[in-house]
């Protein structure tokens, strides 16, 4: 008989536990099917030397980060100092994928620009930003129309991919990298990859 009264209580406790767990999940976070797959190849013009095309193949043989950014992206600005620190102090190779520098900016009307003008404007903005706030990138490339970002399943900026020495995506971080995200999530994964290489 006692059990009969205990059952609703146990169901209640189980539901509370389930909700407590579920409230900590982020329903907006899209799990990437690309983790464990080779990083999609691309060849895009470099911000510092637009005549040169660069891509993931240039980073073979070492683990690295692919950071999707844009100067109009507020969260990217927040994480920028962190990236600079990672590159300078921890020697993490970071490649920047500049995402729709002009078209993505809600304050600009890119439809009035010719492709050449758009490219020039994007280069100017990206270079100015990096010159002012430090350049954490081995190199940064221009993804003016966001096509390469779609290949990486990017659905917002910033996003950062951890890619191993063989060019396989090991982890995807959505949102800005702050001290805590680096220390608790990314650094251990990074250390495991960097350690395995040596």
């Amino acid at each position, binding site marked *: 008989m006692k059990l009969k009264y205990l059952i609703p209580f146990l169901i209640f406790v189980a539901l509370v536990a389930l909700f407590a767990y579920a409230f900590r999940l982020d329903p907006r976070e899209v799990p990437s*099917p690309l983790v464990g797959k080779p990083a999609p190849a691309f060849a895009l013009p470099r911000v510092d030397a637009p005549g040169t095309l660069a891509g993931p193949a240039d980073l073979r043989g070492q683990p690295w980060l692919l950071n999707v950014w844009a100067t109009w992206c507020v969260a990217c600005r927040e994480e920028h100092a962190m990236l600079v620190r990672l590159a300078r102090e921890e020697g993490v190779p970071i490649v920047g994928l500049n995402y729709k520098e002009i078209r993505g900016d809600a304050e600009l009307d890119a*439809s009035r620009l010719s492709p050449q003008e758009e490219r020039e404007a994007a280069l100017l903005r990206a270079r100015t930003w990096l010159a002012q706030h430090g350049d954490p990138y081995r190199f940064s490339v221009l993804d003016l129309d966001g096509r390469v970002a779609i290949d*990486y399943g990017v659905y*917002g900026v910033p996003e950062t991919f951890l890619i191993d020495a063989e060019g396989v995506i090991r982890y995807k971080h959505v949102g800005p990298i702050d001290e805590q995200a680096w220390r608790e999530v990314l650094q251990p994964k990074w250390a495991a990859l960097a350690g395995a290489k040596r």
Partner: protein
Amino acid sequence: MRRGEKRESGVGGLVRGIAAVVAACCFGFAWAAEEPPKAQPVGDPAIEARALKLGHELRCLVCQNQSIAESNAELAHDLMNQVREQLAAGKSEEEVRAYLVARYGDFVLYQPPLKASTVALWAGPFVLALAGVLALWRVLRRRSREEMPALSAEEAAHAQALLRGEGKEERS
């Protein structure tokens, strides 16, 4: 709007005014929502119709309760343009769907495929409904048993007497 035509003043005029403002707002918003500023339909209306149909089955990743055909998010426009381009290039609906799933996962599909990780999602409602029906059936059966306890000989005789109208405890 007939009331307006009769030139009623006061409340009628006010109502008409409010109605006009509301209508203007609604139509204004409707136009704003239907005019995609960046997604360009390709020339072929058949392709466009297929793209829209497919677009309605694909979930926008930015505003996740809208399809990419409905959403005004930048990324949704980009993805719709991808859908259009690929359909125009002769790809099938299935190929375009596979292209997006490879990049964004099953998450982009409003109708997730049936596989090990989604079995609970597909079967769950039916399992719960079946469990509910079973529980209800058990409760009803038990109750029908409990409500009909066998009468003792004495009780039966008493009942028979009552039925024959020989009851001692007559009412009123």
